[in-house]
């Protein structure tokens, strides 16, 4: 239970980011440290000027999936960024931006939402990952 949960977030749709936030929050509630590594479209979703926007859903959602997601939101489910914030309040959740993806997207750290703790490369991510699982979303 002490090994960190390591989440590599690649996908930038709201459904996958919500799923990632649920995994992070669940681990944080159990006292498990969480290391998150933001790549590509997940990193893009964490931009300060984009984090609150609609990032759509994965193609397999279809219209029925969209309706289901909207219904859950109307029933009071928090947006994924809020779930992430709660996870950080609860436990040791570290969110790092992949430096390669920062270059890809031409981003500076000041472009990112305060949820992001820093920028690092894959080597640092693996070092912090220890013997914990690495999950790719």
């Amino acid at each position, binding site marked *: 239970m002490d090994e960190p949960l390591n989440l590599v977030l690649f996908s930038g749709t709201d459904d996958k980011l919500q799923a990632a936030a649920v995994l992070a*929050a*669940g681990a944080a509630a*159990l006292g498990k440290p969480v290391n998150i590594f933001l790549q590509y479209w997940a990193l893009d979703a964490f931009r300060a000027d984009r984090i609150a926007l609609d990032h759509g859903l994965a193609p397999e959602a279809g219209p029925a999936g969209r309706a289901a997601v909207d219904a859950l939101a109307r029933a009071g489910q928090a947006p994924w960024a809020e779930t992430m914030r709660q996870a950080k*309040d609860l436990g040791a959740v570290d969110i790092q931006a992949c430096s390669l993806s920062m270059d890809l997207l031409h981003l500076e750290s000041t472009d990112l939402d305060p949820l992001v703790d820093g920028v690092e490369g894959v080597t640092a991510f693996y070092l912090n990952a220890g013997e914990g699982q690495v999950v790719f979303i």
Partner: protein
Amino acid sequence: MPVVEITQVVDARGLSCPMPIVKTAQACKGLPSGAALELVATDAGSIKDVAAWCRATGNELVEQTSDGAEYRFVIRRK
């Protein structure tokens, strides 16, 4: 069944996973050792989640009841 004094009620009705556990964990952090909280939830998944959380964190699940629609859990902080 001895009456347990509840220091705090966590109302998670209408919230789905993981929020009942997140709110319980948050509330538990603020409790002194030995104090008890009561979680009220409507999410059926809470039953297994609460038991698992208590087992993993060492907090005691004192009591668990349900009236069908709502689930009530009394948890004592270790």
